């Protein structure tokens, strides 16, 4: 008996045939309230669109309004490997083949022919500033050539395996693009330097592999990012921008061991990044080259 009563109240709530009510409202009542909400939400959506439209009008197409987070540009390597770990076996082609492919892909826009076709040669060691004159935009902006051959042994032109087969791998380092960034002052170009990374092995116990890294070569010379590639004007104004690169080649790295390497940008104009951002102005990765099958 009790159960029936319960059931009927629920049923009554969902569809009350006596008052012709569905969920406590009649059809016309539902209609009215839904119409009200329809109008209400259309109005709200309209207001939302309006405010968004106004907001979008305030934006500059060529430069973001703020660059609060990009004070220190990030750094990245190619190939990235898996979670910044590059490990392969020299004897097993398949283990490093993907790195070669990544690099080939990554470097293909830097082929000298392409660069010559799209970009121009600039005066090195000084900023390539292409200012707008007032409201008249000086667009499209030109970009400087960064030829693949600048990477010399790491260009993959002579050695198609970028030294991977020989156990002398090349890692290409790039500095994240940030619009308007001038990475060095007084004509001093920023450069990359790589070394061992201090890493924790136990409580208050730190270790670094500086003796195991061996000799490192930088291309272009000294691992500099030439100032002529800066500032960057954004992908809309500077369509063919070629990001400058630095390649490092490990000449006699200790084999069959994990080696932690950290590369950082040295510049008199880039603030040191936050402690929490491991990729601001520096990049660290692990390298392991196995030789035994």
């Amino acid at each position, binding site marked *: *008996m009790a159960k029936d009563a319960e059931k009927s109240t629920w049923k009554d709530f969902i569809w009350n045939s006596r008052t012709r009510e569905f969920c406590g409202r009649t059809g016309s009542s539902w209609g009215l309230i839904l119409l009200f909400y329809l109008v209400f939400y259309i109005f709200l959506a309209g207001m939302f669109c309006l405010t968004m439209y106004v907001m979008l009008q305030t934006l500059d197409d060529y430069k973001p309004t703020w*660059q*609060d987070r990009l004070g220190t540009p*990030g750094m990245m390597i190619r190939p990235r490997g898996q979670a910044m770990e590059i490990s392969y076996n020299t004897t097993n082609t398949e283990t490093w083949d993907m790195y070669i492919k990544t690099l080939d892909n990554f470097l293909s826009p830097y082929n000298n022919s392409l660069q010559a076709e799209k970009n121009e040669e600039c005066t090195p060691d000084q900023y390539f500033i292409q200012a707008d004159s007032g409201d008249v935009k000086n667009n499209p902006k030109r970009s400087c050539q960064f030829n693949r051959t600048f990477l010399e042994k790491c260009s993959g032109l002579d050695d198609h395996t970028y030294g991977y087969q020989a156990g002398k791998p090349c890692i290409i380092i790039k500095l994240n*693009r*940030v619009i308007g960034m001038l990475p060095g002052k007084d004509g001093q170009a920023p450069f990359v330097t790589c070394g061992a990374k201090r890493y924790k092995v136990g409580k208050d116990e730190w270790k670094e592999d500086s003796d195991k890294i061996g000799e490192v070569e930088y291309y272009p010379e000294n691992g500099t990012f030439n100032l002529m590639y800066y500032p960057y004007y954004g992908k809309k104004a500077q369509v063919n921008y070629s990001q400058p690169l630095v390649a490092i080649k490990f000449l006699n790295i200790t084999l069959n061991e994990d080696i932690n390497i950290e590369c950082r940008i040295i510049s008199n104009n880039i603030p040191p990044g936050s402690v929490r*951002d491991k990729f601001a102005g520096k990049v660290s990765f692990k390298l392991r080259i196995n030789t035994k099958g």
Partner: protein
Amino acid sequence: MFEMNGEVDVKMKKKKKIKKKDRLEGMKKEMDIVSVIHKTRRRESWREYGLTSSKAAEVLERDGPNELLPPKGTPEYVKFARQLAGGLQCLMWVAAVICFIAFGIEFSRGTLGCFDDLYLAITLITVVVVTGCFGYYQEFKSTNIIASFKNLVPQQALVIRDGQKNQINAMDLVVGDLVEIKGGDRVPADIRIIFAQGCKVDNSSLTGESEPQSKTPECTHENPLETKNIAFFSTTCLEGVATGTVINTGDRTIIGRIASLASGVGNEKTPIAIEIEHFVDIIAGLAIFFGFTFFVVAMFIGYAFLEAMIFFMAIVVAYVPEGLLATVTVCLSLTAKRLARKNCVVKNLEAVETLGSTSVICSDKTGTLTQNRMTVAHLWFDNVIHAADTTEDQSGQSFDQSSETWRSLARVAGLCNRAIFKPNQESLPIPRRIVVGDASETALLKFTELAIGNMMEYRERFKKVVEVPFNSTNKNTLMLSVHELEDPMDLRYLLVMKGAPERILERCSTILIKGQEMPLEEQWREAFQTAYMDLGSLGERVLGFCHIYLNENEFPRGYKFDSDEMNFTTSGLCFAGLISMIDPPRATVPDAVMKCRTAGIRVVMVTGDHPITARAIAANVGIITEGSETVEDIATRKRIPVEQVNRRDARACVISGGQLKDMSSEELDEALRSHPEMVFARTSPQPPSSPPLIIVESCQRLGSIVAVTGDGVNDSPALKKADIGIAMGIAGSDAAKNAADMILLDDNFASIVTGVEQGRLIFDNLKKSIAYTLTKNIPELTPYLIYITVSVPLPLGCITILMIELATDIFPSVSLAYEKAESDIMHLKPRNPRKDRLVNESLAAYSYFQIGAIQSFAGFTDYFTAMAQEGWYPLLCVGLRSHWENVHLQDLQDSYGQEWTYAQRLYQQYTCYTVFFISIEICQIADVLIRKTRRLSIFQQGFFRNKVLVSAIVFQLLLGNLLCYCPGMPNIFNFMPIRGQWWFVPIPYGILIFVYDEIRKLGVRRHPGSWWDQELYY
């Protein structure tokens, strides 16, 4: 279902009643046995020697101390655990566990930002524990109030042990102890009297009888409550001395048992508790429903199980109003504090609101409606009835005191009086001084003290020679005394006499008129009769006074007056006048009753007094209004038998205890329904079926929310049964205070009205507060919905939500409790607990789907602004989630071709949280402003009248700024210092909220009852 429940309930009640009766019977039997045992052990030597100390210590060890223990409650840890295991709390526990699991997994992966989950889990647990502690503390404090009351009166007892009289702590009394009590003492245990001299006790705290009961060693009745030889624990000995043996101590005393009976009566859940429970269930249900739906959706879209669980957790956190319980508690305790300042101590916080929905108040007469002190109300002399000043503070008009008769009358009243002031009270105003003596003598003493001056000195001047007191044994209804005269040259004796007027008149042959002795002719007798009837019909206790100067020759100085032989003139006296006394209503009561009436609350009076007195007081305070007639009145007016009167014509009704006993519950319901003005008089206070309990049950059957006031132990079952029990702080017994939800420290009925007003106000304000609190749940929830479905970077984090719920929005929501009433709430009917819910459909719909929706749009506008201005266009954001949250992707391109590391994106995400947070805050400021009123325009209510609210808004803004700009915040609470411009983005939406609500209120005001009003008024 409901019917069956009802049946079960009735059965249960019956069972309980039977049990109670059984227990009471058992109690009686036991008492008899005890008395038999003691009779056999009675020996003369023991009577003087008492127990030995060692024996006493032994018994104390066995029986425990002689004190009333509070009814055994649930253990403390269970109470605490219960605070932690509510519906919402359980949800939060689940959320915290999910956070811990997520933290564990992410930590093992070494993800940046995995500690957020840990913080979140810790915050969630802290929230649950802190609110739990808060609730527990409230509960703890309410029990503490009782403890403090108990400690107010440290009791001492005069006990005879080892043949020596000792003053010991009453707690150490044991069964068999010989104790002495004297006037003014509280009886320290249940005592069988073995010797008594003029001993009278006041049983009012136990049985509600206001008349003092005399105690003698004879066993006069087999019922321990009726017999004369047992005095009860906690009653007061008014006069005389008595010696007795202790027969019961502590919880085994009659009072202890009644208290424990009372604790057996089910406590009704308060309406607000029902409201909140109902509402929390819905919220918890919806949270789980939403969470689960999105869990399934997320799984379906292809998120990992862990991610889906985190979504579930986040939705629970977003949807559950974490701050709500704290807000409600704080609002209620604020009101409780406000009430405490007005002498209402609220034990049970929720009772504050119950008071507001009260529709019937069952009020005790003595002490609550009246001052609980006999006061001279009228005098009849010189053939005129004079009204005396009965106000508490003697602020009223006095009568003409120039007549010579008045001086004689006052002299009789002053001299023929055994009451005396307790010493050392000169600093107190006369009405407040403590007097030893019975009620009417006290009244006369205070009256004469006020009229003549220092009575003690006055009596010194008229030295008392002999006196014959009222004596119940020889049925003497008169009291007389013989005094020497003030003037030492006048050697006559003055005999003064007072007593029942008709007996006094019998003894008189002359009457004083304007100071002249006139023969008592028929004309004067008739005048006397009329005056006597008039005063009697006012429900007043009338005493007659007469005097005579004894013949100097017959009774010379040194004459041996003998009070037993009565060897002196006691007739042919000179009648001086009548004085009538009443326990006058408190000055504030008529006004308060009037307020109750306009507020739609019935006041029902319940008293042990005579129906005539009860009616007179009821009429005096307005419980029976002018022009209202009882059935009997109509019968006399129309000169027809009572049976022929249409009961519905009579607005008022006085029901005596005897009639009440014979009524079935249906008849009582009918009586309560048909007569709006009810007085229950001469209610015999015998537990367990005390009349208040029956009346309360009847009112509750009629659907009323009943408040009951009471002070006696016998009231405690009714206090507990009532929706809100109100105990008297001064007159109330501990048992009553224990059973009550509220305590009136000044025993004043007017305080109840204040309580009602505050209760109604808090109901309105809680509604506003809850509406405010609920609104932000939508802008907290929508970011997740959008995040999951459209895959934008997360706009609002869980910790940010908790900061809104628990930090910035708490103060504004509490400040709404200080909002003034929109209209005169005391002119409205009490709310119907079935229809006027705290959280109704339109409140939820308006908060969630209208204001909440506007706030969500505000948040998203600001979110997209912050993203776009930093380089992420809205369209790029859509579907960006998987890249955005890829920990290994350190060069993700934005709309301008710039490349971002993961950490840079994460801090950008925190910026979004902050921006969304600020949007909600700005909108909530608009929200708190619109919630000030539900119907009136804010311009009518005033922007700045609620100072607390203004400061709450300032506080909210300051706290928002602190969270945004305090260094270190990004890594603790995920707040970033945001651009000042982003504070202004949500302002158009804030204005929209404000304007829209003004339009809504305008519509509601202009078109009451319209579709707009029905759908949009909450």
